[in-house]
């Protein structure tokens, strides 16, 4: 059974002049222990997907329809109080900026033990012992002393390790990590990525890794979902999506990324820009920019179709219709 199932999720932002549909019928699953990457450019909806799952959608944003199931139980329609128990215990969160993820007024130890005791039936001494263990496991040197330090006494990379420790503290099955390494230096990024992979695999925790950095996805994830204009354009095993993308947007994206291992005279560019939420084209949202669009693309919106090793929301892969080759 999959750990997380998102089915036909629609997230809307109602406001005076109408309703903006920010996530339009998203469906995907995460298996226990799997690392799923969610990649896309600004405005594609990847952070919003993470926020919907953790239950941290900013009002007036709301889940308009669809379901989010965690271990077979529906979590999108829970009350605030019920979600509070799920968050931390079943789902851990890691955000981009470690400085704002930690409370500056409490020691790191206090924040860890508070989370542990809120969700697990242990006493103070045991909680502290586990907290020290977590800090050691995430590579904080002299953990037994540093547990009583405040966040400002840690460097950026160290703080992010503390945030990872905090996310794992109540032993969740799923971690949602939204751009966990973007604010860090390159050399620290590598350390944090390795750490995240290791501690999650050791604990059997699944990860939803949201980022715009394809290199991070390539090194960390098992599968990846490419998002565009509030929809999933392609989803599949990471090697296949990177090396043999089936959706024209994925193809364009992979070709546009400068890679350190290959030198190219000119970077492939996708002309135009992602459409605004109030101006999403009919049919396939990518059709105005797509070099292979044909008539059907402008009227009918494609579902995710089987496309070799991946699934792509593209009519080119509809085996039944006579798509131009």
């Amino acid at each position: 059974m999959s750990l997380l199932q998102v089915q036909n999720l629609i997230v809307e932002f109602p406001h005076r002049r109408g309703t903006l549909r920010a996530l339009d019928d998203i469906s995907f699953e995460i298996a226990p222990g799997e690392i799923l990457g969610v990649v896309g450019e600004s405005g594609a909806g990847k952070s919003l997907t993470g926020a919907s799952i953790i239950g941290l959608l900013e009002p007036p944003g709301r889940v308009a329809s669809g379901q989010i199931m965690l271990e077979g139980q529906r979590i999108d329609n829970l009350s605030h109080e019920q979600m509070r128990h799920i968050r931390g215990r079943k789902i851990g969160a890691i955000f981009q900026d470690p400085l704002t993820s930690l409370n500056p007024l409490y020691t790191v130890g206090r924040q860890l033990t508070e989370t542990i005791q809120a969700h697990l039936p242990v006493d103070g001494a045991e909680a502290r012992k586990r907290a020290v263990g977590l800090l050691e496991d995430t590579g904080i040197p002299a953990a037994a002393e540093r547990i009583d330090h405040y966040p400002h006494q840690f460097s950026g990379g160290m703080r992010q390790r503390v945030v990872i420790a905090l996310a794992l503290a109540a032993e969740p099955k799923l971690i949602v990590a939204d751009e966990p390494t973007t604010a860090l230096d390159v050399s620290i990024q590598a350390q944090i990525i390795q750490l995240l992979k290791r501690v999650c695999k050791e604990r059997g925790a699944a990860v939803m890794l949201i980022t715009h950095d394809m290199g991070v996805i390539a090194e960390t994830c098992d599968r990846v979902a490419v998002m565009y204009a509030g929809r999933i354009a392609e989803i599949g095993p990471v090697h296949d999506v990177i090396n043999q993308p089936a959706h024209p947007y994925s193809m364009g994206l992979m070709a546009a990324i400068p890679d350190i291992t290959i030198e190219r005279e000119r970077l492939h560019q996708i002309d135009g820009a992602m459409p605004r939420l109030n101006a999403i084209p009919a049919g396939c949202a990518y059709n105005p920019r797509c070099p292979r669009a044909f008539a059907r693309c402008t009227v009918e919106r494609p579902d995710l179709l089987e496309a070799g090793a991946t699934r792509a929301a593209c009519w080119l892969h509809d085996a039944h219709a006579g798509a131009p080759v």
Partner: protein
Amino acid sequence: MTAPLVQAHDLAKTFDVSVPWLNRVIERRPRQLLRAVDGVSFDIGKGQTLALVGESGCGKSTVARLLVGLYEPTRGGLTFDGQDAHATFKSPQGRQLRRRIQMIFQDPYASLNPRWTVEDIVGEPLKEHAIITDAARLKDRVGELLDSVGLSPLDMVKFPHQFSGGQRQRISIARALATEPEFLVCDEPTSALDVSVQAQVLNIMKDLQRQRGLTYLFISHNLAVVRHVSDQVGVMYLGRLVELSGKRQLFGNPRHPYTRMLLDAIPKMHDIGRSRTPVQGEVPNPLNPPTGCAFHPRCPNANERCKAERPALLAIQGIRIACHAVEEGRI
């Protein structure tokens, strides 16, 4: 052979970040000096691109500002087309020099005045330097400049907020080109942009360089982008250059331990599954740098000399490198 267009000699910039005098006296705290740039030298030939890379605190943005005259160097200097740039900036000829050197900034949202139309923004340098005084001709020229960066001349009536990040960055480029400069200092020009937009902007910059023989100093923390745009690459660490060589050489055979670790640390799209040793430690506090070679606490090849003696940037086997271990032939 003509001298390089841009020559930096031993550029240094120190900032006094001490707490106020009264606090120093009462709390008995010493002065605090931040050596943001501590002796950087390089040459850039006409039509070439030198990329400066490094992590936070390495001083690359400060070097950019020194080069355009936004900061006065604490030590050392810059020679542009044979003349002492900072002395010229202060003289009556300074305005002429400022037409020849222009800058593109990182944040496309902060570098354009939100209350001005694009026409005013791109036309400002033309008016300021009295390059064009006739209003109709000015409008035409702004239209040409917008066209050269892939925007429509009709866009000149709009305000910055009506454009996306990538488009704003193109407006910045159009503005920088208004004075027909020879040298462009680009401080992380695509870091705030999405990948597909970055590709558009980088392609435009390369095209313009080819068409107009522009010289670039390109600052970035993204080595993949640097690989795409540069001819020469300089790696900076805590205010100093540790390695300076041609692009092919740097990426093909990096010599300095920091360069190697940096290249190794970058997440790569196509080398999937390769395990590697991540860099140990973090960049030290620039207010309190290590003795000797600043990289020694993190270097697997450090010896006693490295802890005591700061390595000079030496020419070794066709590259410039500051490393005792390389000089001694240990690596």
